[in-house]
């Protein structure tokens, strides 16, 4: 049996990057608790549009927790109170009738606010461009199982690959650091045989770009706690280890490529 909720929302409204922004208060009455948080905002927006007001801007796409588009801070916590869920998967049944809910965008120097709850996550793309790829032979596709990968390694790489790049880790980190995202993207490829040719250059380049936008890691573990995909901080340790190893390696082998060191 679904219930209806009457809520009061305090939502960050900001016209553009240069605007200073402020909280706006909205009544959200008669919200069906089977709705997701985004569906609740859709209802509020329809009412705002009906009143001739500017609807609340927020990012979204798949609405099933796999694209990484959605995300904002609900009551001081990225993606809201429910662990392991994105806001598109967060159901209103986790809230109570009469709740006051505060909604605010990710806050980081690297994520400027575009409008209301929408931020630019372009620095994530910059990090990926720096090394989040592999060199693959061209020509006919090889047989899928021609490179053998131990099951635990494949599983671990897959755990890392589950990162959807939503930015909640940066939003949660008191230092505004992007360690969880970057380390997951590095580990995903550095664990696999296909990722070995660029292993050391990947970690140094991606870390370098990461550090040019974001803060540094103090091992608070806030990122892991809010990550909708449950990415482990073990990947951060692995990134640190690969980075330190790369720094202590023969310079000539760091360039990677087929002549580089695949160890």
């Amino acid at each position: 049996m679904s219930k209806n909720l009457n809520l009061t929302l305090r939502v960050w409204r900001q016209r553009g990057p240069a605007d200073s922004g402020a909280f706006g208060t909205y009544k959200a009455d008669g919200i069906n608790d089977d709705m997701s948080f985004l569906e609740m905002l859709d209802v509020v927006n329809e009412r705002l549009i009906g009143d001739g007001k500017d609807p609340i801007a927020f990012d979204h796409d798949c609405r099933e927790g796999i694209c990484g588009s959605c995300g904002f801070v609900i009551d001081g916590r990225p993606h809201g109170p429910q662990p392991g869920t994105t806001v598109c998967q967060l159901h209103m049944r986790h809230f109570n009738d009469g709740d006051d809910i505060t909604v605010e965008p990710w806050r980081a120097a690297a994520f400027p606010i575009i409008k209301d709850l929408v931020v630019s996550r372009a620095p994530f793309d910059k990090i990926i461009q720096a090394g989040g790829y592999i060199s693959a032979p061209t020509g006919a596709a090889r047989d899928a199982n021609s490179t053998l990968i131990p099951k635990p390694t494949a599983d671990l790489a897959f755990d890392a690959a589950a990162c959807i790049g939503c930015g909640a880790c940066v939003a949660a980190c008191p230092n505004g650091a992007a360690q969880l995202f970057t380390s997951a993207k590095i580990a995903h490829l550095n664990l696999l045989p296909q990722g070995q040719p660029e292993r050391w250059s990947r970690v140094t380049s991606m870390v370098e770009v990461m550090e040019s936008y974001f803060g540094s890691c103090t091992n608070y573990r806030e990122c892991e706690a809010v990550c909708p995909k449950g990415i482990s901080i073990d990947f951060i340790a692995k990134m640190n280890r690969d980075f330190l190893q790369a720094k202590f390696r023969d310079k000539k082998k760091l360039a990677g490529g087929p002549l580089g060191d695949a160890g």
Partner: protein
Amino acid sequence: MLSGSAPRTSAAAQAPAVRQRRKHHLWVLYFYGSAIGKKAVMAVTGIVLLGFVLMHMVGNLKLYYPDAERHLNAYGEWLRTFGEPALPHTGFLWILRGGLILSFILHIHAAVSLTLMNRQARPIKYQGGRSYAAADYAARTMRWSGFIIGFYVLFHLADLTWGNANPDFIRGEPYNNLYYSFERVPVALVYIVANLLLGLHIYHGAWSLFQSLGLANPRFNQWRRTFAAVFAAAIVIGNVSFPIAVLAGAVDEPEHITGEARLIEHAHTLGTAAETLPGVTFHA
């Protein structure tokens, strides 16, 4: 896809600040220039400091020996004379001190520069407040605990090494200095509070250093927390017990038994002057 109409803004207005880093030719500087490099330096210097703090606490347990004064003063003398004659007097001690001073400076320099970097990474705080899901009190107060420990170390040196903060200071008699220092309640309180903060700093630091150095392994990960908690508890219990023991009167008042006083006593029983004993030199 965006809900609501996002205004078209120039790319420049949306571009986040990029921190440009100087490319040092010297490997160490380039390494230290990266935040992960700095964090590794923090972890390694942290290990040096942890080793020191542990040895320092264990050394002071001599306070609980019978005949504690002689043992503690002899230990101090041993630190100054160790390695002689290969090393000059206090040579070994200065090698230790050199390593410690260097570690301390690097640890603090890295802490300050990383803190500044982190401040820049979030210039605008959460306006609606934020909640913490995992970061404990120890982790969130590293900067405060570290900062206060830094000042405490200076006070501690002034109190028991240089002696200018201790009216009862006698050079070369650590037992006397420690006893009369801890007998003053405000001073004892400074030691107690500072060591509680040190314990807090270690509780996070001794766990965190494994992550910083990339030492994660499902085989031992669960022990990292235990290690840090036990280390912190050992340091706090040991160090806090010393002022409490003095205040509680569980430690004997100093009788000014130094290594030299013992020699003089020994010479006296032999009926000679101490200076005439073979191999004896007195340090002014």
